[in-house]
Every structure is written in structure tokens, then in C-alpha cells.
């Protein structure tokens, strides 16, 4: 007898559907770039996964049908700049699937979040391509031109708001003089937030990680800005800029690499939120989501060990 709840394939599909809102928001502001990146990513994911799985002597169709490779590709494609050259997403997805998933034995066996592993690899290897973001709407032809011919459209690319603020602050500007709000980023984050709430309602993800992550982020941001509100972003901007909502509901909630005990999930999420703010403020990169998640992935076995629930009859 089995519950009528979602099975593994359906879970992956639901997460993909929930991403639609955020992706649409990105399209509204920045055009077709993100769609092209997603398509590129999905195709390369399917190719790479089928090759590797066949090399491992298993059935490629079974492995692809659970949708986890597609999900990894979409998450990575959504995290990178929409105008990055085509080979960036292809290399990133290949790295994520091979080194982040198949090397460890396939679905369910990887200690690190594959999408974030791919993102970190790309960020370190191709810093220029990974920090050049679109600033305006791109039509389909423009997007394809930029992505495939690496023609640079001056005036159509630049840094993210977080990046600009960080650079300006380090150069000595005052916070009150800077434009810290970004409408596009706020809408995109809102899109992912609503998608995430949908996943919570459908019980695809557990509440512990998103709630803990956002709490950690809010508390740390409040602490830091309490010390020097002139030099540090207020908390609402931390929530609505960068990959905060994507991280909270889609990336940190990846069940395979997250903590498995209920209390452990709270600790895990909270520390990711704290780390995101720390890396953003004191670290060398404008957004700290990828590294925060990867660092906490490393500590999951330790967290799991110390947050075991007390078995019945052993209190």
C-alpha cells in the first residue's frame, strides 16, 4: 500500500513548474536571454547525463526520466547572467552533472548541491563572463547574437545592483547617496518567493530550510546594519536583491545535499542565511549564495550527527 503523495519524478517536475514565475519575471525585464540559457542548459544536461550514465553501465532513460538533471540545468541557467556566452552554461552544466552528481554515484549520493558546484566553478574560472549582467530588455535575435557570437553590446551589459553598491561602498561613497533598490531584482525575487510558497503548500519542500534561511539572513543583516547603517545595506534589500529567494526555496532545499533531521534542517538553513550576508558584506564576491550553500553542504554530516531526534523509549 502506498500513499497517494508525490513520487520522486513528480517532485522534480513540481519544482521545475514552480520556477516559472521567477523566470517569467526575469523575461519581462531582461528578455529572451534567460530562455536561451535554459534551453542550452537543458540540452547539454540531457546529453551529458545520458553519456555518463551509459558509461556507468546503467539505463540512461530511467536516469533522465526523473528530471533531476533538467532541474540542475535550469537552476544553473537561472543563476548565471542571461547574456553569458553559450559555452559558459554548457561547461557549467557539464561540470555540475559530472563532478557534482554522477561522480558520486548519481541521484541521491552527492554531498554537494550540483548547481551550486557548477556555479562556483564558473565564477572562479570565468569571472568576467560571470559578472557581466544584462541591463535592458533583449529581443530574441539580440539575445542569440550576444550569446552565440559573443558580440558585446555596450550599454546592454553591466554589473548587478549588489555588485555596484559593494564597489561604490568600498570606494568610500555613502550609502544614502546610492541607488540601492532594483525593481527588476525585486520582481524576480518575488517571483521565486511565490513559487517557493507554492512548493510549501503542495508539501514538496519542508518549511524548515526556507524559514531558517530567511531568519538567519534577516538577523545577520539587522546585526550588521545596526553597527553601521551608513556602510551596510538594510535588511529588505538583502531580501530582495541577488539570489536570496532562489536560494531559500529552490537551492538550499535540495533534499540530497541538505541536512536530513528536522532540527538539523533549521541549523543548516539558518547558517546558510548568516553566511550569505557575511560573504556579501565581507567576502570578495558580490553574492554569497553559492559558497554559503557549498560550505554548509560540507557540514551536513556533522549537523546530522548532533541533531538526531531521541528515539521513543530512550529519553
Amino acid at each position, binding site marked *: 500500500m502506498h500513499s497517494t503523495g508525490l513520487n520522486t519524478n513528480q517532485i522534480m517536475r513540481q519544482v521545475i513548474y514552480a520556477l516559472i514565475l521567477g523566470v517569467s519575471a526575469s523575461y519581462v525585464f531582461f528578455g529572451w536571454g534567460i530562455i536561451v540559457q535554459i534551453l542550452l542548459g537543458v540540452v547539454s544536461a540531457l546529453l551529458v547525463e545520458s553519456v555518463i550514465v551509459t558509461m556507468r553501465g546503467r539505463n540512461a532513460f530511467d536516469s533522465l526520466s526523473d528530471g533531476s538533471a533538467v532541474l540542475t540545468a535550469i537552476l544553473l541557467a537561472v543563476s548565471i547572467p542571461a547574456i553569458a556566452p553559450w559555452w559558459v552554461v554548457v561547461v557549467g552544466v557539464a561540470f555540475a552533472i559530472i563532478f557534482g552528481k554522477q561522480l558520486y554515484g548519481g*541521484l*541521491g549520493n552527492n554531498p554537494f548541491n550540483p548547481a551550486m558546484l557548477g556555479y562556483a566553478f564558473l565564477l572562479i574560472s570565468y569571472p568576467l563572463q560571470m559578472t557581466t549582467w544584462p541591463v535592458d530588455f533583449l529581443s530574441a535575435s539580440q539575445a542569440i547574437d550576444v550569446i552565440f557570437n559573443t558580440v558585446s553590446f555596450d550599454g546592454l551589459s553591466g554589473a548587478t545592483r549588489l555588485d555596484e553598491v559593494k564597489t561604490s561602498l568600498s570606494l568610500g561613497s555613502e550609502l544614502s547617496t546610492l541607488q540601492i533598490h532594483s525593481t527588476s531584482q525585486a520582481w524576480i525575487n518575488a517571483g521565486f518567493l511565490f513559487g517557493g510558497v507554492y512548493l510549501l503548500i503542495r508539501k514538496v519542500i519542508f518549511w524548515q530550510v526556507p524559514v531558517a534561511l530567511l531568519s538567519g539572513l534577516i538577523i545577520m543583516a539587522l546585526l550588521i546594519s545596526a553597527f553601521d547603517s551608513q556602510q551596510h545595506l538594510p535588511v529588505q534589500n538583502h531580501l530582495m536583491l541577488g539570489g536570496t529567494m532562489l536560494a531559500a526555496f529552490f537551492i538550499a532545499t535540495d533534499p540530497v545535499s541538505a541536512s536530513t533531521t528536522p532540527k538539523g534542517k533549521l541549523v543548516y538553513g539558518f547558517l546558510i542565511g548568516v553566511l550569505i550576508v557575511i560573504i556579501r558584506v565581507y567576502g570578495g564576491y558580490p553574492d554569497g549564495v553559492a559558497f554559503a550553500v557549498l560550505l554548509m553542504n560540507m557540514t551536513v554530516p556533522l549537523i546530522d550527527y548532533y541533531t538526531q531526534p531521541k528515539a521513543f523509549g530512550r529519553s
Partner: protein
Amino acid sequence: MAKFIFKGGVHIPNPYPVEKPEIKQVPPPKQAVLLLQQRVGGEAKPCVEIGEHVLTGQIIAQTTGNFPTNVHASISGIISAIEKRPIPHPSGINAMCIVIDSDGKDEWVKIEKCDKEFLNCSAQEIVQKIREAGIVGMGGAGFPTHAKIDNAQGAHTLIINATECEPGIMCDDSLIQEYPREIIRGIEVLMHACGAKKVIVAIEDDKQEAFNSLLMYSFNDRISVEQIPTKYTSGAEKLLIKALLGIEIPSGAYASDHGILCQNVGTVKAIYDAVIDNRPLISRVVTVTGSGVRKPRNYEARLGTSFASVVECSEPNENQHQIRMGGMMMGVDIPNAQYSICKITNCIFVNNEEPKPVVKECIRCSSCVSVCPANLLPQQLYWHAKSENIEKALEYNLMDCIECGCCNYVCPSNIPLSEYFSFAKALDRKLKREEQKTDQSRERFEFREYRLERNKKERAEMMAAKKKALKEKMAKDKDKDQSQKDKIAAAMARVKKTKEDNA
């Protein structure tokens, strides 16, 4: 209402509900195959021979130990075989059975009416009667009832488990509705046997009619009937005790150590039959249900009746069937209906054969953690059981797993988790057995080496002592020899002198 609602467990609606659970009597079968072994333990020894004619209720296998229980003939007829037959167990192992061919008369052995009111019997006498009647836990566990009551002498609370939490089973529900008076009486007998001062009858809140029948017939103010929220595994003994009394029995301990005795309501009815009517355990109520039968119903059938004949009464459809003995969560899949009803068969599920769901990899989603009623981490147990790392699995409290199957029920990858846990427990038992055996062999070998050494040494000492004694004797003999020679020489000298004197 219950004080404690345990975390975990699953809500499963009854998949095949019936209007009113009734019990239909199944006529005695033409052949009864009676199992001699109940739980894991020894077998009862047959006390009849092939060809002997037995009467219904006559004892046909006896036991001296505490674990196996007496077996009685459930029909009258001739013993046609005492041999190994297949039993509904996942191992497919055959076990010893006694086969009786019916003579069609169903003649009962002479029943001596008890002339003493049960309240005037001592607790020991009642336990003895229960023992002789061969009663075991009728909820499916099959633990010998007399042993359980013996261990719980001096208990303060008796709990009657009428929860029937496994979805689809309704035999206890119907039993309570049809025999409420007998059940209350049986409870009073049990109370007297264990010395309990208070009785709580626990029943799930979806069985309103059964609850009302019990209330109607219970005039003893030491017996209270309580409703608990309907949730699967609410009927697990330790969880039930915590729900009703707030006491958490520690892992590895028994409820009887804490003065609590828990019995299934079907067992109570069997106790009534045995003590008040002097009838041994020869029949039980079995639920037949599933998508493969048109009329899910309860049947009172003699032990040893084949599954097939009982399932027939529920009008099975023409599809291929998948049969399961026990409930949908904790039952045992069996390949066909050629088995017979034994004391612990509470349900037969007959489902249309469906393709088995595809098993995928574990995605560590922790749904299993959120439903485990014992607060375990089924995921960790799964990883360690799969890699046969039993030591680690024991550290994660493998032994507290009640194998309820809640984790299987919710796993999105359809992994049969509780099968891994049964395997891990069996492997642990095997490793402990082997360790004990090797320690014993090593000891015996080392003792043998020591013994042979000791024998050699003793022999050497004995030889040395003998040699010494022989040497001394020889030396003594030598002296004797010399004195002998001297005497001869002296005598000869005397003879010579005499001769010379005479010449």
C-alpha cells in the same frame, strides 16, 4: 481522550469500508492443517499418531516449555498426516503441521463445566487454564498469553487493545459489536488473573458502534472505555501506553516490568471461551477484504481452514490476485491461497494484481523521518542496512523499529524500507549467534590443547616416578643378591670345611 498524540504515523482511510461489520460463520472444513509452531520458538510435540481418531477440542500437540503453545483439533476426524507443510512466512520455509481429515460430524470432546465461579479460582489456576487452551495474542503478534500474564502478575493497569489501527482490518470491530457481554466478562477474568485494579479499553474514534456496545454492557466501574484519535500505529503497545497513561516504556524493557498488561480484545474473547466455557482455542475471526473480492467480510473460521475456502465466500473476481496475510502495512505477501488459517491470521487481503511501483534512488527527502512513530531516522538505517554495517545501524536504534511500514508508505522513491530493517535485524541475530559459536569453539579447542598437554605431562611424571621406583627396587635387589651370594659362599665354605674335617 488520550493525553498524548504521538508524532509520526500516517492517516490511512479504510480502503474497503463496509456498511456494518458482521461475522459470518464458516462451516468446519473437510480438512484442517494445524500449525504446530506459532512464533519463533520451539514446536509443540504431537501427542497423537497418524490414523488416530480425534474429537473437536481434543489436545493433539503439547508443550512443556513456555513458548510454544498447545494445539487442539479444530474438527473431529482422523489424523491423516504429521509432516512439514508450507507456512505463510517470507522465507518459504516449511514447518511441522498436523493434518486432520474430517469425519463430517464435528463431535466435541467432553467439556467439563467449571463448577467454581472464576472469582473463586486463584490467579494461577486461571493462567493454567489459559495455558491449556493454547491461547496466543490474537492481534497478530502471537505471543503466548499465559507467559505474558505470568510476567505481569501484580500489574496495576490492564489495557485492552481494541484500536485495530491497521486500515482495512475489521475483525476486532465486529467481535466487539457481536459479543460485548462476553468481552466484558473476559476482561473481568483477566483482571482477576493478573491482579490489576484498573482496566482501560482503548478504541479508535472511528468505531463508534463498537464503543457504544462496550459502554452499554460495562457496569464495572473499574473498567473504563476510552477513545483515541484514529491514526495508524496508535495500536502499537508502547505508543498506546504512552497515549493512555503518559508512561514511556524505555527501549528494551517490557510493559509488564512497569506494572502494565496489554492484551488484544480478540485474546480476551478467547480467554472468556477458555475459562468460562472451558473451550480451547480452535477458531478465530478473520477479515477477508481487498480489491479482488466483491464482498469484504469477517468470517469465524476453524483453525486449519484453507485460505482459499474462506476467500471463496467473499466472491473473488476473475482477475489475477495478489494475496497477503495480515494487514496492508505489516502483512506478509504469499504466492497463493493454499495456506491454512492459524492462530495469528487476522486478515487476508486479496488484491487485483498490479504492476509493482518502480523503485528509485533515495533522494534523502526525510519524509520517512516525519512519519516514523518511534522517532527514528529510517533513512540512516536504510543506508547502513544496505551496506550491511549492522553496528552503525544499531547505533541509530535499529532495535526500536517496530516495522510498522509507515516509512514505506510515504517514500516518494517507493523504497521498501522496512524490508531492509527486517534484514538488518536478522543479520544482527546471525552475527551474534556466529560470534557465540566461534567463542565456544575457540574455548573448547584451547581446553583440548591444554588437556592433551596436561595428559602428556602427567604421563611423563608417572613414567619418571615408575622408573625411580624400579631403580630403587633394583638397587635393593642388588643388595639382596649380594647378601644371598654371601650366604651361599659362606654355606659352601662351611660344607667344604665339614668335608675337610671329615676326611
